[in-house]
């Protein structure tokens, strides 16, 4: 996948993963892909809901060794 930017939000608790994701998204252009890495389990459903409400597309998410990764395409 063509990733424009990687955001490391590991070790951060809610609401910070979303706050930082939102900030990182503001610097990207429509169609760019942001990869977010997080360890807070709550980030999973929140990021999906946030992306949807903001008109972005959650392309894929994975979980490996307690690290959650998300790829979000800016809308």
């Amino acid at each position, binding site marked *: 996948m063509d990733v424009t930017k990687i955001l490391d939000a590991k070790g951060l*608790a*809610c*609401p910070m993963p979303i706050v930082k994701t939102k900030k990182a998204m503001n610097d990207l252009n429509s169609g760019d892909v942001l990869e977010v890495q997080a360890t807070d389990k709550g980030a999973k459903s929140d990021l999906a809901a946030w992306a949807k409400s903001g008109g972005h597309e959650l392309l894929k998410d994975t979980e490996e060794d307690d690290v959650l990764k998300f790829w979000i395409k800016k809308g």
Partner: protein
Amino acid sequence: MAKTITTNELAKKVVNHEETLILDVRNTDEFDNWKIEGGKVEVINEPYFNLLEGIEPVEGKFNKDQEVIVVCAKGGSSEFVADLLEESGYSNLYSLEGGMKAWSEHLEPVKIGDLKDGGSLYQFVRLGKGCLSYFIESNGEAAVVDVNRMIENYEGFAAENGVKIKHTLDTHLHADHISGGRQLAEKAGATYHLPPKDAEEVTFDYSPLEEGNYITVGNTTITVQPIYSPGHTIGSTSLIIDNQFLLTGDILFVKSIGRPDLAGKAEDWVGDLRNTLYSRYKELSENLIVLPAHYSFAEELGNDGSVSARLGDLYNKNEGLQVEDENAFRKMVTENLPPQPNAYQEIRETNMGKVNPENEKQREMETGPNRCAVQG
């Protein structure tokens, strides 16, 4: 910085029927699945991520000086939102410490009644999950039924009341919450009782809870009389205490009845469930006070925050007891069942001693409502 409120303080508001406004800032799926209910609680949902650009989504929903308790999953986002609102001129905000995770673990003891020969029966209401456990004390001794994982609550209560826990009992192998019965028994030097038919796969020693056995608590004649009442699980057992109280486990609730499918045997057990509800319990005194192991609806909480009903009244009012046709009953308890409780398979395996997840994992497994009932 916004103020905080503890789960203990919030629980008092709920059981005392104080007007309470909650702003739940979790995402809407989680909110719809599970929220704070009971008493005079009113809840508004607005996910925290919708408030990052400004608080317009909640503007006008409450007054600037109104008391609002902000709630999230673990307590971080609620504090964040409360601070945002304070910056916008709202002045009476509280963030719930520990969020829904802590709320799920709070136990509120409510006295149900006195025993005839001295002693009392208390119900521990788990407001965040709808689990009910029972503390029976008499003459310095106690028995605890359907113990929750947070055993320090019962240990503290026993110490405050100067009683020694001699017995812990599970009415059945639970699928919605992790039992603390075995652990509490080990720590207190008590005996752990479990119905043998639910214990075929367990990896630990226990005392079989069987029909015809009596368990004495204290020196008085308080006896726990187990009645085999299969249906929710094959070994489900009800307890009659002091000829006054009927602890029904997950067989009969105040507004609903137990679901027979959580161990994957709905078809096999539906007959047992019907037999228990429509014949066995009918032979008992209708003046018995039914005390279930769960409740599902906030309106089941009585004026003092407890959950109970007279058996005879349930035969008139509980919809699960009004289905004369056996096929209609079978259909009701095997079709269109609500979703299963979170992680119910893992919870069952934990309660059998087959797996032993670390504490944080156990807390996660227990999030969400109990979902042990089917509605009539």
